[in-house]
């Protein structure tokens, strides 16, 4: 689960990391009021602020979602433009208004879990403020990494050693080392899979602060952290994906015409790939899981058909533990409750496949047992429709 910048900043602040002030506005008037209160330029408000779109998309600046405003009136004007703007498919509902910082230098500090070393890895770079993946791709020598032993955590000397890669000034290095240790603590405390401060800035008066933050939470942490789960912003997600999650399905919308309903994530991906192999394009990823519950089948069909570009629907079920006859019954009940306007191609094989074919045939649905044949038919029907 992605957090917004303002939510990530709150978490860092709660862990004792210096974060400049900033508040969230949902209207231009609110943005004006915040700018009047917090605006920089000697304190006391009214000075320059930055207005930043709060959406789950990178490249906000390039898309016009981050603007500098000299005064509260300009802040209101920028907020009016940014609110409601669409960035990479996401509509902006909130902006963060923060005093413009007096920046002397920018660096990057981030933590991820590295799959190869199987440890949390701290990454720092003096090339802050820009896309760290670009830095990693073009000038990997500018990124310093440290795999942390989770039994002992990030040790003080390790943090200082990394901080000295970013600062010549020892006071600043100590401040940054402290921020790194606090970031590491926050990483475990909130169940993050990524936490980054980009940029970590030094100001002209020598202070170190986290200007922008990004935190991604491991979805597997949410059940035991209700206070973090409550930060989810469903208005920032595709409605179909919210509906799928509420129905207990994993769904990702794509832009093709063949709706896919599959049991198991690997088979679901392989089915999408086969649709492409036979000249079609998948409309979605959908893992219906091991369940043959008709209600799940109904939810899946509702979610898939809500997409107007879907021209045919393909079921691909491999019955291992899941019984094919249960799924067949689910499809029959679901389509009675929810008649379809697009053709349906069903493939089932494995446990109780003969019974399933019989159930479907009696209900007027042709059933296939070969995956390639089913995909070919679904692609052809989507093209004919």
């Amino acid at each position: 689960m992605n957090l917004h910048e303002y939510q990530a900043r709150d978490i860092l602040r709660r862990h004792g990391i210096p974060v400049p002030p900033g508040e969230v506005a949902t209207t231009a008037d609110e943005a004006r009021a915040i700018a009047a209160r917090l605006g920089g330029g000697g304190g006391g408000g009214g000075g320059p602020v930055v207005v930043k779109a709060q959406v789950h998309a990178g490249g906000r600046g390039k898309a016009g979602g981050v603007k500098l405003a000299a005064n509260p009136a300009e802040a209101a004007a920028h907020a009016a433009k940014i609110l409601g703007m669409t960035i990479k498919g996401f509509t902006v509902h909130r902006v963060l208004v923060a005093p413009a910082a007096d920046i002397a230098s920018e660096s990057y500090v981030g933590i991820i879990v590295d799959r190869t070393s199987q440890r949390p890895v701290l990454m720092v770079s003096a090339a802050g403020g820009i896309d760290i993946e670009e830095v990693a791709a073009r000038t990997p020598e500018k990124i310093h990494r440290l795999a942390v032993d989770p039994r002992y955590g990030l040790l003080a000397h390790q943090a200082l050693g990394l901080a000295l890669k970013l600062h010549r000034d020892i006071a600043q290095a100590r401040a940054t080392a402290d921020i790194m240790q606090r970031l590491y603590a926050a990483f475990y405390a909130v169940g993050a899979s990524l936490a980054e401060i980009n940029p970590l800035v030094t100001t002209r008066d020598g202070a170190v602060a986290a200007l922008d933050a990004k935190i991604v939470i491991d979805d597997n942490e949410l059940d035991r952290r209700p206070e973090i789960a409550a930060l989810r912003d469903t208005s920032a997600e595709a409605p179909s994906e919210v509906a799928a999650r509420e129905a207990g399905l994993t769904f990702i919308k794509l832009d093709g015409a063949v709706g896919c309903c599959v049991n198991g994530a690997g088979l679901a991906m392989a089915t999408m790939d086969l649709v492409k192999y036979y000249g079609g394009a998948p409309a979605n990823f959908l893992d219906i899981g091991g369940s043959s519950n008709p209600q799940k089948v109904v939810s899946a069909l509702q979610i898939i058909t809500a997409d107007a570009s879907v021209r045919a629907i393909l079921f691909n079920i491999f019955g291992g533990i899941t019984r094919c006859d249960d799924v067949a019954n689910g499809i029959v009940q679901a389509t009675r409750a929810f008649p379809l306007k697009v053709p349906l191609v069903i493939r089932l094989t494995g446990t109780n496949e003969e019974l399933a074919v019989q159930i479907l045939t009696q209900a007027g649905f042709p059933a296939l047992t070969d995956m390639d044949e089913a995909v070919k038919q679904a692609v052809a029907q989507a093209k004919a429709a």
Partner: protein
Amino acid sequence: MSVFIDQQTRLVVQGITGRDGSFHTRQMIGYGTKVVAGVTPGKGGQLFDGVVPVFDTVADAVRETQANTAVIYVPAAVAASAIFEAADAGITLIVCITEGIAVLDMTRVLPYLHERGARLIGPNCPGLISPARSKVGIIPGNICRPGRVGVVSRSGTLTYEIVHQLSTQGLGQSTCVGIGGDPLIGTNFIHCLSAFQADAETDAVVMIGEIGGTDEQQAADFVQQAMTKPVIGFIAGQTAPPGRRMGHAGAIISGSSGTAAEKMAAFARAGIAVMKRPADVVPLLKERL
């Protein structure tokens, strides 16, 4: 001989009285696996189905039954704890079926296992099966046939699909291992490839990977350097968009890294025959056997 499990496997089932644990325990016993004990805290002293003794702790089960392998079906919230417990009790092969363990829990579990010399398969995996000998986990026995092809995969039902194609077209399996779809797992492709290379009863290996991470790329290097047996590879997720988790927690393209194209290219460079679709598995294998 087979890989990781055989007739010497003495299995303890953690979560034996739960819905999934009890169903799959019956399946495993029916397949011939020696299920010597079950563990459900608070139910020690009971007999599961009148035959399998249930203990409160894994330590009790090991002491009383000499169990050497554990399979875990407990809910996600307590699954990391179940792995710690099994390792602490001296179990050397732990198979965790449970999906949904937090990655940060795994960062603590894995060094603990390493210090004790225990192997973990999974989590979030279907387990493993040596057809006609033993099965630990949930892979349906009826789709497998004994034979000489090793199968290793990050997936569940996709593995069944490919194993089904092998079995129905006359190619049996020595062992099928599901290593799991999570970002941090106990046993990776290289561990399995290495075991298959050493196994006198395996002639060729089918490796089923997917987007996310670099495990397949590292496995490709291993195949090139250390394997003499033919390897056939498949990568799921050619049509997956970047930055999205495709069901499995580990199936995500980060930036431009972990794509199917990159992994398939690594396979091809290493001399691994690349399947374009699941149905290619039998023809590609038959060309090489």
